């Protein structure tokens, strides 16, 4: 065993990279669920974002345009979910699962000609002054722009939900759609916008995997990240800063267990491999034991103005 071979600076830097996709997807899903909609199609939207981001990134040579296209494509895909659940009142759980399957199939189809190709990836931006701080500088302030963006986004969502009037209305829609409707708020329109925001965030998360974290396109490459994002929303009790905590915890344990294995730590590998999931489950149990975790009261319920 040689723990000294694990470099904590690199470890923390890679855990931030590893956590960014699930954090982006989870923060989007938080807004969706805060509006009272349960969209289980995160995985499908992520993989769609991954393929569209990669294709656009390759064809334009600009990863930034790739991210933009990924956000737009996944938002468009999420509109289909919104249309089915909000206008045709289909079951949200079933429709969300369907969305995942559609996304996986569609992405495989789009991505076929792009297998094995390489895209330009995002270069890290070293934030002036801050990145010169010894140790902490390299750890926290020498990442690619999407890592910073994801953290800023978490802060923005938090401020939006807590301080803005629109955030209050969104939460009202999610807590009691009938009351919100009676007050004259457009429940369906607000939910549709929330769903599109969630789609765009999932798309960014997926594109981060195909453009930065891996970076290449392979079919099925999100490999369940969308489901982890859904778990993290519950884990975080629908609170934005806890999303950041949850995503970094999950990403951290994932990266740490690989590093511990490489360093030859004498813990059986099986325990290391299951640890990210195990820790997520344990924390979920603790949170549930605390009682009301702030799940939006109308979560998963269909709304129609006649009822």
């Amino acid at each position, binding site marked *: 065993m040689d723990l000294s071979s694990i470099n904590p600076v*690199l470890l923390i830097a890679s855990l931030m990279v590893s956590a960014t996709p699930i954090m982006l997807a989870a923060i989007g899903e938080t807004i969706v669920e805060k509006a009272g909609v349960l969209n289980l199609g995160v995985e499908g939207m992520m993989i769609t974002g991954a393929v569209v981001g990669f294709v656009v990134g390759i064809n334009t040579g600009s990863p930034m345009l790739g991210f933009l296209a990924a956000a737009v494509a996944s938002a468009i895909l999420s509109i289909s979910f919104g249309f089915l659940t909000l206008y045709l009142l289909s079951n949200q759980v079933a429709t969300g699962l369907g969305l995942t399957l559609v996304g996986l199939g569609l992405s495989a189809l789009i991505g076929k000609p792009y297998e094995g190709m390489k895209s330009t990836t995002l270069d890290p931006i070293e934030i002036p002054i801050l990145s010169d701080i010894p140790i902490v500088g390299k750890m926290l302030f020498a990442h690619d722009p999407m890592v910073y963006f994801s953290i800023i986004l978490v802060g923005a969502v938090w401020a939006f939900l807590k301080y803005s009037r629109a955030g209050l209305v969104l939460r009202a829609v999610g807590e009691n759609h009938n009351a919100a409707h009676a007050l004259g708020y457009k429940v369906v329109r607000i939910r549709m916008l929330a769903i599109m925001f969630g789609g765009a965030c999932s798309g960014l998360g997926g594109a981060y*995997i195909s453009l930065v974290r*891996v970076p290449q396109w*392979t079919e099925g490459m999100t490999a369940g990240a969308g489901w982890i994002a859904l778990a993290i929303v519950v884990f975080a009790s629908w609170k934005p800063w806890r999303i950041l905590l949850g995503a970094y915890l999950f990403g951290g344990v994932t990266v740490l267990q690989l590093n511990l294995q*490489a360093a030859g730590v004498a813990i059986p590998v099986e325990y290391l491999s299951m640890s990210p999931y195990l820790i997520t489950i344990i924390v979920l149990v603790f949170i549930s034991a605390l009682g009301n975790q702030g799940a939006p009261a109308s979560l998963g319920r269909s709304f129609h103005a006649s009822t």
Partner: protein
Amino acid sequence: MSLKSILTGAVAALGLTTGAYAADVKVGFVYVGPVGDGGWTYEHNKGRLAVEEHFGDKVETIFQESVPEGADSERVMTQMALQGADLIFTTSFGYMDPTINVAAKFPNVKFEHATGYKRSDNVSTYSARFYEGRAIQGHIAGKMTKTNKIGYIGSFPIPEVIRGINSAYIHAKKANPNVEFSIIWAYTWFDPAKEADAAKALIEQGADVILQHTDSTAPQAAAEKAGNVVTFGQASDMAEYGPFPRVSSIIDNWAPYYIARTQAVLDGTWTSIDTWDGIGAGMVGIGEISSAVPADVKAEAEALRDALASGEYHAFTGPINKQDGSVWLAEGETADDGTLAGMNFYVEGLTGDIPQ
């Protein structure tokens, strides 16, 4: 559920009667990953396409990709058998017991299971001696490492993977007595993000050569990003990452085997056999050793390849001790296939335990 299975059975039976005109033989393939993984499944699918090409209208092929190992695979195989497949290739180690189970229910359907060791009257097994290719990779790795740390991304702790680790280690050690291996078990055949993370973890801890026994090209991309890290293509050539970081590769070539076995079914001469071919028979190909490898190392590696191909040298030739120091092979002794097929120990010098 039972109604559903009756209905699917009925539909399959209808399909069978109408489809009978189409082809003489229907061949099914069960894949563990997507056909676009660029590695293991990609090569099996190339074998399938070769079968289609070779036989034309006489043979129809069907496949199912990304089938999880375990109960789900049993359902997929049953479905294929009900759809009228005459020959079914199950192409991952974890399909071993499901293949045996389903084969017992369909005595008239022939099954071929890749990399396993359980056979029955209608189940053959086939595999390639990938460890011969690993010996060559080990040699190049030992010569090319500057940090003397070689990273190895394992999938599951099964004999197939352990053989590869041992073979690579023995030959890396011969080339460079100071090498150390760091092994990460990914517990997946295919998860690009996880494979990339594993490669990064190894690189961050000083490994400058990465060997992988997982199926995607993600570790290649991670190595390319890191810069001075050498990799090898796994299962497929992965030439798009050459000449550096990918300096050589093991290429699985299943096409001749698939064609031969399909022919045997057409001729009615199919019997249950165990095939285990290596470089010599062409089932294991060694991808071009790139210009990034120094000429003398390349020549040594090619000499090793030729010696393995001709059978004049065996990749496991004594003296070799087991990890605990006990003697496995005496001077000049070579390993027998039985021990290799069930290999569950590290050779001397490797650190860490094999997860049980």
